[in-house]
């Protein structure tokens, strides 16, 4: 029997890692991720989790240690945030290039400077092109579910890619909510036993991380690119199995009250819950507004996204990171690119906000929707409009 519990999202992730029966955890504590490694260290020390816990001296070492563990076929987990993710950056690429199914929880945090411990998505955007599968969570239940899902999918022989589970720092990582924990037996069924065919072992020697001369590097990288895109059916299968076993359904692109919507407000991460509340209010006022949640950020679900926005006139996109000197927020510019060749495409109105923990409340979402609809009609030569910036007049933006 599954049980209803009340847990902080960080502890829900730790619980999922425990139930996934990992072999090795290597992590360096960093706010706002600290509660995950703390709880896991406790579980190992108390004998509740039979795993090696490596208290490394940095995030670069954390990723390096899980790389070593993954190379011998150990189920491995690490977790970080913000600056920590930046420090481990070069090793992040190695994990996916080696095709090690490492799972990493990232409690999204703004990047220095100024030093900020609070949430935005600038840390994860710098990992956009690292070839990890990347998902975002909206609440505590999802933080648990996405973590066990990540082990299920990453280790599938038809995937073999590492997965980042993103949960917004503080606004999700430190929130306590009720959630349902499944039976251990069901989790064991959901995550099959992992057997890494190419594990380092003396009786079958192999070399991981070899030199790649110009005549082979391109083929190796394209093999990786094709494999990441080909992982999609297993990503979906993991969610379908979850729905069948645990009764909770997830999709790469999720819409809320999308039927007949002329305007969709697009978010990634926990702010989606606030956006949905505003959608309810707008619907009550008779406005044809819905919400679109990007759960799967990589590999980007192009077909699902194009399908979901058919017949929609305006997409109001909230980005929580700046692409300095670039084409607008990272999410909005990708969505624009995804729709470039589509006929009768919706107008994309990009907003950037929620940086370094700045709150985005219901009123702000309502403003963004209204302003988005206005711009969709009047047109605008702004790349995006930053919201709630003192000294910047409302309705003005950043030009290219």
């Amino acid at each position: 029997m599954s049980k209803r519990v009340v847990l902080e999202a960080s502890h829900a992730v730790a619980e999922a890692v425990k139930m996934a029966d990992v072999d090795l955890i290597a992590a360096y504590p960093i706010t706002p991720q600290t509660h995950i490694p703390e709880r896991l260290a406790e579980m190992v020390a108390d004998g509740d989790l039979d795993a090696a816990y490596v208290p490394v001296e940095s995030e670069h070492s954390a990723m390096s240690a899980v790389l070593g563990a993954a190379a011998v076929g150990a189920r491995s987990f690490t977790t970080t945030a913000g600056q920590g993710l930046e420090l481990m950056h070069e090793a992040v690429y190695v994990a996916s290039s080696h095709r090690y199914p490492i799972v990493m929880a990232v409690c999204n945090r703004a990047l220095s400077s100024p030093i900020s411990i609070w949430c935005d998505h600038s840390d994860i955007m710098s990992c956009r092109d690292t070839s990890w599968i990347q998902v975002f969570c909206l609440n505590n239940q999802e933080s648990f579910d996405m973590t066990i899902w990540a082990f299920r999918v990453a280790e599938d022989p038809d995937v073999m890619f590492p997965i980042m589970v993103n949960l917004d720092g503080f606004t999700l990582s430190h929130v306590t909510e009720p959630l349902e924990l499944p039976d251990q037996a069901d989790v064991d069924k959901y995550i099959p036993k992992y057997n890494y065919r190419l594990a380092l072992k003396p009786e079958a020697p192999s070399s991981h991380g070899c030199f790649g001369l110009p005549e082979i590097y391109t083929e190796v990288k394209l093999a990786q690119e094709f494999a990441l895109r080909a992982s999609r059916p297993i990503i979906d299968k993991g969610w379908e199995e979850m729905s069948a076993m645990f009764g909770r359904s997830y999709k790469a692109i999720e819409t809320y009250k999308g039927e007949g919507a002329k305007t969709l407000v697009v978010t990634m991460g926990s702010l989606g819950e606030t956006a949905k509340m505003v959608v309810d209010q707008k619907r009550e006022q008779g406005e044809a507004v819905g919400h679109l949640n990007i759960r799967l950020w990589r590999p980007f679900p192009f077909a699902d996204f194009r399908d979901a926005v058919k017949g929609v006139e305006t997409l109001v996109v909230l980005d929580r990171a700046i692409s300095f000197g670039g084409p607008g927020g990272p999410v909005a510019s990708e969505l624009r690119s995804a729709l470039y060749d589509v006929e009768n495409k919706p107008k994309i109105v990009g907003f950037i906000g929620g940086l370094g923990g700045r709150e985005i409340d219901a009123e702000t979402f309502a403003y963004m929707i209204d302003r988005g609809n206005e711009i969709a009609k009047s047109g605008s030569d702004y790349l995006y409009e930053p919201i709630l910036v003192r000294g910047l007049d409302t309705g003005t933006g950043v030009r290219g």
Partner: protein
Amino acid sequence: MAMKDFTNASDVCWQDVELGAVVTTPGSASVRRTGDWRTERPILDKEKCIKCGLCWLHCPDAAITPLDDGYFEPDLFHCKGCGICAAICPKKAITMLEEVEQ
């Protein structure tokens, strides 16, 4: 599927790349010609050689092969022409000769 079936990286298509580009054949680096970026080749003068083996000991790429008759011969498939053997030879029995286009 594995790259082990190929001795020449230029024959490998993306479909042939092993998962994670793992190399499953130990010692496969030796089949790769690394001597092709050499600009000078070592030439041994057997008249001066005293078979001390210092060139063999010092070669950073194990590209000096001991022969049955006690002499040491550069392995030009792997030799990159660094000249350490020539510099270390106590009898100046090895000279570096510039490679020229054939």
